């Protein structure tokens, strides 16, 4: 890998926001393609950030700093990708289910999954279940990722499975659930396709689902 790419990785990992755009431009100037910059440098950097978070070496402030640094670089190279093609990894629709506004965890998942090169459509918080499904159909998304920290809102996740089944989309669109109130047992019980404890595991699982 070129020295420019190494430099960009370090900038994202260390969260040097102001240097990210220039460093990304230098990677382009050195002849790296936008795809390579996304999949190799930016994805590699967020993987390192994820490892540091999992090891409790990084906490939320550092992750937010790296995520915002990542977006600086991404905003430069994303528009250069072929129209409609995205980076090629696939599309994930994500959000916090209706009735809940706790979105920090969702935002970390967004940063981590964006870091893998996937196209992430962020629906925000307090999102009606039907809106998730409509957006996933419209964008031909492979994954709907939904989170909640609360318990009353778990019912919405169950409704998601019902709607997807009724519309014959179950399997074609896979569901990933997460957040403080969820568990592996709960995900299995409602028939969700995946559950992870944290954002690092969520991004790895999303990458696996997008491969198939």
């Amino acid at each position, binding site marked *: 890998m070129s020295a420019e790419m190494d430099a960009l990785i370090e900038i994202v990992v260390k969260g040097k926001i102001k240097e990210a755009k220039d460093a990304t431009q230098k990677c382009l100037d050195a002849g790296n393609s936008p795809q390579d910059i996304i999949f190799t440098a930016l994805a590699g950097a967020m993987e390192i950030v994820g490892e540091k978070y999992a090891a*409790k070496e990084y*906490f939320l402030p550092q992750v*937010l700093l790296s995520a915002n640094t990542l977006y600086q670089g991404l905003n430069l190279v994303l528009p250069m990708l072929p129209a409609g093609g995205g980076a090629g990894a696939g599309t994930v629709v994500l959000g916090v289910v209706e009735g809940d*506004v706790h979105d920090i965890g969702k935002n970390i998942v967004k940063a981590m999954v964006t870091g893998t090169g996937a196209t992430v459509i962020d629906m925000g918080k307090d999102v009606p279940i039907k809106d998730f499904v409509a957006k996933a159909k419209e964008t031909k998304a492979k994954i709907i990722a939904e989170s909640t920290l609360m*318990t*009353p809102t778990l019912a919405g996740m169950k409704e998601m499975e019902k709607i997807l089944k009724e519309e014959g989309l179950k399997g074609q669109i896979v569901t990933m659930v997460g957040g403080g109130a969820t568990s592996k*047992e*709960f995900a299995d019980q409602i028939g969700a396709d995946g559950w992870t404890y944290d954002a690092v595991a969520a991004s790895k699982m999303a990458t696996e689902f997008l491969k198939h």
Partner: protein
Amino acid sequence: MSTMTPRERVLAAMRMEEMDRPPVAVFTQSATIGQMEATGVFWPAAHSDAKLMAKLGAAQAEVLGFEAVRAPFCLTAEAERLGAKVDPGKQDRTPMLKEHPFVMNPMEGVYDEPKIMDAQEFLKGGRPAACLEAISILKKQYGDKYPIIAGNTGPFTLAGHMVNTENLVFAILMEPDEVVKWIDAVNPICQAYSQALVDAGADIVQMSEPSASTDLLSPDMFDDYAGKYIKDSLAAIDGGYSVLHICGDTYSLLDNMIGTGVTALSIEEKVDPAKAVEKVAGRASLVGNVGVVHPLLQGTPDDCFKHGQIVAKAGFNVVSPGCGLSALIPNDNLKALVKAVKG
């Protein structure tokens, strides 16, 4: 020993005195649909009417047999009083913050000044005043028999409610002075409110500081942006016991929580109960840590009974749910937890 009232038993547990058994009491949000149906008092009305709040707050003892009474049921009263927009929620759903009254945007470099009302003004109106009244009603009606627990919000969490928690956390690295400015501004309110709750009749103030959990802050950041403030706004209260509640896996944070000087720590089931007792080693009283989602919400009464026994046997000073109850938890599961401890 068996002649102890629940109040005597819980207060002895705060002092970590040896007893035949620990008390079992909900120190976190205590209301459930089962208690609402039994008392005829429902959310959201009980969040703002002092009489209704007191009636529902007594239900954990009167309906289910727990050994305390407690109010209120959410962490939005303070933020709403300070200008945040709050959705009152539904019968089974706690109130939610819809809009933060101030802006902190580290990416754009926009930082509002913390122009908020002073502490004395804060206590005079809105839902904090209703909570104070509910505590004094509880004290009058139940003060001889049950300990009165009042819940409030920690300074870092409240500052996050003012400006958006994610932005507050992000600003710790971008503009730490702006973060300090906000916590400095809200902490006198937390301090005055904690003391006012005691003065209104609370035996125990249980302050929740969820935004300072290890999912968000490192233990060092906890000390700088939450712990040192909690020393003043909770641990220093005069005439009552102080309990600090933090969610998530608090194992690596236990020393820092003890360092605030509070009477007791209230923690979640993500910490193994025996390991928590071993690490705390009598430096503070321990309250918890039966899981709210599992076993209480999703398990059977038998699961709840077993978990209650595990926590009691591990040596927790008070057996309690590890976090605020989901309103959907069935009566039978809560009664099984009570039975596991009281027999």
